[in-house]
């Protein structure tokens, strides 16, 4: 029993470190990808081809002064970034990286992830509220509205997958998917996949839905008043959130760890490639699209995405009852 607990803790530490490393290099990857899309080089100075840049950034943020605005609500102000990061990190626990490799392979994995991503939204709202600053307040308001609306669209877009797989367990979904005719749900669930991709961008506050922190209007939105490592926590939370969302997309629509052929000593390879493809998609969108206006985001969420996702659910139900059986 004790050994089991110790092993789990060891596993958590290993996964945590690996994820943190990936988060650090996700920022590097982002700057390089967007840099090359924008006819420039991205980071080049720290280490060969700027490879040590994320570490330098981390050190810089860690040693910065911890500025605390006088009018802010202290406990909430301190708690908000931690909530954001913890909620994002906790979601990692239920993600199966390859067959049988998940920290906790619970039966309601998908539901757990949705719950945790809502919790991250709570952190953003608290941050905007506790800062007691007008820009942060507006950012927090926008975040609460946006995250709640897109939560619904995202949840509904996954319902089709749940119906097809008949399970909420992430590993079961991948296994059911491997046995389906196409091997991935992105093809039969193309509508759901589309809604998921859009909602995924909105859930993680990425362009074109980066309203809560929209730098051209609200300076930095909800994290305007945060400096140093507290700001870094938000930043980490956002990137962990991106990895989580990309993982959910991979598991639900792209077939998880399965691939065209088996790689015996490196079973995570397909999972990683798919996740990185989706992360690349985040960056690609960011380099291409302008930003929506706040009310337009709401209209898109409620008038387009939710009806589409609902239609997808109905369609899947009909197909499942009459065609695929």
């Amino acid at each position: 029993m004790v050994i089991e607990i110790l092993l789990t803790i060891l596993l958590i530490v290993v996964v945590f470190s690996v994820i943190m490393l990936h988060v650090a290099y996700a920022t590097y990857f982002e700057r390089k990808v967007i840099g090359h899309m924008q006819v420039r080089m991205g980071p080049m100075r720290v280490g060969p081809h700027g490879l040590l840049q994320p570490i330098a950034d981390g050190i810089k943020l860690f040693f910065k002064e911890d500025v605390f605005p006088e009018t802010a609500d202290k406990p909430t102000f301190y708690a908000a970034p931690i909530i954001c990061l913890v909620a994002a990190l906790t979601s990692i626990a239920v993600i199966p990286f390859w067959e049988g490799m998940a920290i906790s392979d619970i039966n309601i994995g998908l539901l757990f992830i949705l719950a945790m991503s809502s919790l991250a939204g709570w952190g953003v709202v608290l941050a905007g509220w506790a800062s007691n600053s007008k820009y942060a307040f507006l950012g927090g308001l926008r975040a609460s509205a946006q995250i709640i609306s897109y939560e619904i669209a995202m949840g509904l877009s996954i319902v089709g997958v749940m119906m097809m797989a008949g399970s909420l367990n992430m590993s079961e979904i991948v296994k059911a998917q491997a046995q389906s005719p196409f091997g991935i749900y992105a093809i039969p669930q193309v509508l759901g996949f589309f809604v998921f991709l859009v909602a995924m961008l909105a859930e993680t506050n990425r362009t074109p839905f980066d309203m809560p922190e929209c730098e051209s209007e609200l300076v930095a939105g909800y994290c305007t008043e945060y400096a140093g490592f507290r700001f870094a926590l938000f930043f980490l939370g956002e990137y962990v959130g991106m990895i989580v969302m990309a993982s959910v997309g991979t598991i639900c629509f792209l077939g998880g760890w399965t691939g065209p052929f088996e790689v015996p000593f490196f079973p995570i390879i397909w999972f990683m490639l798919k996740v990185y493809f989706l992360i690349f998609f985040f960056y690609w969108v960011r380099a291409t699209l302008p930003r929506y206006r706040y009310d337009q985001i709401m209209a898109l969420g409620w008038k387009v995405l939710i009806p589409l996702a609902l239609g997808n659910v109905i369609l899947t139900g009909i197909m499942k009852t009459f065609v695929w059986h």
Partner: protein
Amino acid sequence: MSRNEERIADVSGDALSEVFEVQMGPQHPATHGVLKLNLVLDGETVLSCKPDVGYLHRGIEKLSENLTYSQSMPLTDRLDYMSAIANNTGYCLAVETLLGIEAPLRAKYLRTMICEMSRIASHLLWIATHALDIGAMTVFLYAFRERELILEMFEELCGARLTPSYPRIGGVRQDVTREFMDRLEKFIAEFPSRLEEYETLIDTNRIWLKRTKGIGIIPAEQAIGLGLTGASLRGSGVDYDIRKHRPYDAYPYVDFEVPIGISGDVYDRYRCRMEEFRQSVRIIRQCMEQLPPGPIIADDAPDLVMELKPPRKVMAGSTGPSPLKTALIRLVEDRQAYMEGDVYVSTEVPKGELGFYFVSDGRGMPYRMHIRSPSYIHIGALGVICEGELVADIIANIGSLDVVLGECDR
């Protein structure tokens, strides 16, 4: 009590909504310098928007009262630093009118060519920041790539990138080199394809259209009433371009069109400026083809170290015969003094109509210089346009009016 004040009072009485004030600026990433907007917001809706300018005031108009006409030239670089040469040219034209000098034809062509280059440079910075404000960050870097080419050409031309002071009273500073012309040739051949690159990114993008169409509408009459000029006015469908209607320099000899918008929203102003890029390329090409040989500075142009003359007592709007007329007579009678009287000359700079008004007492220094800067007037219009729109639209409007605070605050 205006409609909006009523609304503010109305909302403040309402228990459910809360009006709050935001001072956007002067340090803010999207206000293009040090513009400050005092906003009254009801949630995301702007109830009132009052621009607050003056954070970049350097007293250029006052400074010039103690400098000779030649010495004031570098100050005009610092007005609209995105298109310094256009300001220089406007200033030179005004002083030339005052002193009765005419630049030789070659100098006129060179000025026109360089002015259009600076128009492209200024519009590139406009599209870059406008797109960045709306969130399309790639356009920003693409535009800077091309702007760099123009600035390098300026450097080759006269040694300075941002503040060239290239024109002179009565001509230009030095002639163009072969290499410069080759580079320009290459640039204008390549540039239209680069424009298409920007357009593929934003022109038909759904989000871009949603953010710009029907936003910040200024009807033609209101635009005239607000004193808008340049592409901001033409976007509302008013055909007014000083290059066309009161041509100066080599503009009468070149063929170009003035792009006009229809509805006067952010998108139309955007389209107008995008078309102006193409017209500028056309003007540059014609200037290069027609460039006549000859001197580049007039014989009677004042030296850089202008001699000062004793002042004569003359005031703007003084009674008696027209100052300009008396001045002309005096000038003919006695070449010892510079021309007296007042003169207003306006040119079409990338931002709009830039006017220089001089009151001269014949000393060789302006008794008073006033600059009619388009940005100042456009910022004044901002408050009217933004009322009732959302916070995000303010940013789109600032970008589409193309204001620069260096020129606004002077």
